[in-house]
């Protein structure tokens, strides 16, 4: 170590990064995660279309407490001028780094922070997303459970602001739009990966008469799907990729147009538009950024009338009914 230490003391000064060099910071692992795969796809497209631009994908793994260190290493490497990422928790971390690396810019999807001149954030209206799966869950429950007690459930890995303020109320609003008598059960797992415990929680909910569950639990959501499969019940999914987990049990999947969004915003940035930084936008169903994936057998297998009612609700939402819009979060 001593020799290396000497080497370090005569290191070169930090170099100035190429303005067209982009890092995609994946706060997790891209492979197997639809949102992060879309993040990479969108950014790649924007870079491919911009002559001279370069792209590097950095995977940071799932431990959120190490993300700051990874971001800092990326910034300190001096290789990048724009860092693109997607995760609600990133703005704070980036804001912490920004003062140390004044030239660096951040574009963060699925996040919200206004007023930092180095950071542009875009938030999906996840209340609408929740509403969409809420309506579907309500319709399916009512269809299957008949006139009994109307209950649906949300199983979360842990509680966090977007969940409490957007997803959960949106989901509940969707249920109540179907029938105001709906009650929402809420369960918490405690982490993002204990699928066996998720299965256990889901199993007992299904056993007590719940027909549809929405898991917001990362990998642990697999446990909910598994429980639905073996009891012939249903799950609805968030953010895409749900149908692949089970062709029957997952009956619906709300989506976000992450690849399009990232493409558009990065394109702007690479074209030299500095005005986006400091801004915090919210995108919604109206612009087609929040939607629903119809392309699955499980969805097509739902009763004709049910699907018609659901399509109607989604169309109305895109037209602003009900209105879930908000500017500040």
């Amino acid at each position, binding site marked *: 170590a001593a020799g290396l230490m000497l080497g370090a003391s005569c290191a070169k000064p930090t170099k100035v990064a190429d303005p067209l060099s982009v890092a995609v910071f994946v706060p997790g*692992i891209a492979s197997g995660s639809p949102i992060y795969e879309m993040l990479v796809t969108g950014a790649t497209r924007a870079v491919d279309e911009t002559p001279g631009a370069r792209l590097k994908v950095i995977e940071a793994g799932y431990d959120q407490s190490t993300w700051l260190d990874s971001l800092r290493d990326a910034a300190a490497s001096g290789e990048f001028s724009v860092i693109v990422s997607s995760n609600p928790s990133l703005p704070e971390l980036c804001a912490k780094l920004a003062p140390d690396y004044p030239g660096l810019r951040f574009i963060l999807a699925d996040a919200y922070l206004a007023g930092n001149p180095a950071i542009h954030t875009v938030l999906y209206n996840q209340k609408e997303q929740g509403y969409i799966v809420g309506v579907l869950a309500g319709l399916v429950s009512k269809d299957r459970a008949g006139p009994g007690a109307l209950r649906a459930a949300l199983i979360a890995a842990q509680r966090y602001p977007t969940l409490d303020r957007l997803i959960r109320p949106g989901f509940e609003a969707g249920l109540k739009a179907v029938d105001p008598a709906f009650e929402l059960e809420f369960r918490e797992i405690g982490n993002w990966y204990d699928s066996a415990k998720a299965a256990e929680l889901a199993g007992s909910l299904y056993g007590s008469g719940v027909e549809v569950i929405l898991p917001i639990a990362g990998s642990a959501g*697999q446990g909910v799907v598994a429980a639905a499969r073996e009891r012939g019940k249903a799950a609805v999914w968030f953010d895409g990729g749900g149908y692949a987990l089970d062709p029957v049990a997952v009956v619906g999947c709300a989506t976000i147009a992450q690849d399009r969004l990232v493409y558009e915003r990065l394109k702007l940035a690479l074209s030299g538009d500095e005005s986006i930084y400091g801004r915090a936008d919210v995108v919604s169903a109206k612009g087609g950024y929040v939607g629903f994936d119809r392309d699955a057998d499980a969805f097509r297998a739902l009763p004709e009338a049910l699907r018609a009612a659901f399509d109607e609700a989604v169309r109305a939402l895109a037209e602003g009914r009900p209105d879930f819009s908000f500017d500040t979060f």
Partner: protein
Amino acid sequence: MSALVSLLAGSLAFMAPLAPAAVGGLVTEYVGALNIALEGFILIGAFSYAAVGAVAGPVVGFGAALAITAVAAAGADLFSRKAKADPFVVGLGVNMLAPAAASIVSQSLFATKGVAAVAGLQSTLVLPGLRISDIAAFAVAAAIILAIAATPFGTRSRAAGMSPDSLAMAGLDYGKARGAAHLVSGLACGATGAALAASVGAWVPNMSAGRGWIALVAVYLGGKRLGGTVAAVALFSVMLSAAASAQAVVELPAELLLSIPYFIAALVVIVGARRTARRRGT
């Protein structure tokens, strides 16, 4: 009444994957090795079940989980003995290596580093809270219990832990006894991992979720004895299942509920030690 049934079912569901790992941890404890790598070996077991099960079906997958994990555990012990590496550091390395290796292999096998759901690997429920895979896990645990309670393997393992010299006096090799114990604990962790993966029919990164540590704690809470360990496993299963069921009644924070069994257990240990000390009159 139904609450009681669901509590019991939940406890069984929690206990099935925990029991083998705890018994496996006990075996290595017998030979005097603190096995902190249970967590890593459970992951190896779970992944092997999914990976082999995907090609050869759940039964072969279960067997492969046992075999692969046993070989891995024995290998780690062999490394630590032959290279004179500190077993604790080796355990640390295993816990770090297992999830990383699983992820790398998963990428080439399932083309994903995330959840890999495999059709047909979910084991069927035979009772509420009890799957075929759980019964298999209990069977593995029972077989190990029988082996340590009633065969020379148990006595020799304990002798190895108490005094390696006493084994040498019987012309037995301490290293071999230690290796055998690790092999068995690998089998056990394989069963735990397979039962976990079979309960959701998929490989989920990190799916052991601390069960290896709970198993280790159960071994110690049970005074490193067979009966005590089994009782501690049962106690933990009931407490954790109760903490989960409690969410149906009040929306209590899951994490705070999870912490309670540990504090209670610590209190039990201290009070228990105090009473033993009194009895000994010191």
